């Protein structure tokens, strides 16, 4: 079965390539901002521009955002860490100046909810699938699917007509 053999090989190679790429990139880590404008942008993109709706300080074209960015630049040059800079803004404006809620306290709910939901959904789906698998089908037994090439020409035509008619929308 050489044709299936090369397929297995190719598939394995593809999965390997994908896995290796992801591993390499994950190990390399995200690009750290190097130049000062990049560093300012990195901090500014985690702060909310107070005068515009839902834009970060990095994206906002408003004057106040410009002042924020200048202040961030000054504080970075003075040696403050991004977290310290953020805390400074929180002291002045409150927690809402952060563009995403910190992962503390009640805000954890928002961050954890997607994962919990996915797991919960999986569990629900699993129980539903088990219930369906135990339901007795009322009609004749299911016909196992075969590929189209296995049928004779007339059978194929018959099958295709039936399939096409079944998928037509009989409104």
């Amino acid at each position: 079965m050489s044709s299936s053999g090369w397929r297995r090989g190719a598939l394995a190679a593809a999965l390997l390539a994908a896995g290796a790429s992801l591993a390499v990139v994950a190990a390399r880590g995200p690009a750290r901002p190097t130049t000062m404008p990049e560093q300012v942008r990195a901090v500014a993109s985690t702060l909310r521009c107070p005068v515009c709706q839902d834009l970060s300080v990095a994206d906002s074209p408003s004057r106040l955002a410009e002042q924020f960015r200048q202040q961030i630049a000054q504080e970075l040059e003075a040696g403050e860490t991004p977290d310290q800079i953020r805390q400074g803004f929180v002291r002045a404006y409150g927690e809402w100046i952060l563009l995403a809620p910190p992962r503390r306290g009640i805000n954890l709910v928002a961050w954890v909810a997607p994962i919990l939901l996915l797991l919960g959904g999986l569990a629900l789906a699993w129980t539903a699938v088990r219930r369906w698998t135990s339901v007795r089908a009322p009609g004749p037994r299911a016909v196992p699917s075969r590929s189209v090439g296995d049928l004779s020409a007339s059978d194929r035509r018959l099958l295709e007509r039936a399939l096409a008619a079944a998928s037509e929308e009989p409104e």
Partner: protein
Amino acid sequence: MEESQARHPSGMGPSPAYRRRRGRWIVAGSVMAAVAVLTSLLAFGLSRNPTVVQSVLVGRTAPDFTLPGLSSGQPVRLATLRGKVVVVNFWASWCADCRVEHPDLVAAWRRFQDQGVVFLGIPFEDSTQQAEAFQRTLGGGWPQLADPNSQTAVAFGVYGVPETFIIGRNGVVAYKQVGPIPYARLSDEVTRLLGSPAT
């Protein structure tokens, strides 16, 4: 309409379908409960004004600043005013609401300046000429300080004008007003703070 068997064909208790039929009220009840929770949350949302933001500075020591006078260049430092009641008003010549509140500020200043209350005006995102022109035309008299890169405004958490901070004798921010401050509110707060101790 299909009817479910009340009893399982084997004769052993209610059929699964009948149990589901009874259980539907429980499910319906849970649905109503969930809807009620969502409704109360959204009703709460309606009851509050979405543009009002709480102030975190109230109850904390006001951030210190040293700013030059707008025209004179004479520096003023907030920390040196400890022991006095200080009213800090952020405003701008391009701001319509600042025009609205200005008479209230003037009236309050006239009333309280002899009692040692310090009024400070800080133009926000404004040009010196336009700020000076505003004060000249509308009348003022209390010191105006220059905050060219808005560093002080940012330290105070200012995101719009006008915003007014009333600082007590102990340097703690007692009250913050977002939007035009009415004369009554201003004088009530200042009077209260004048009566309280300086520590």
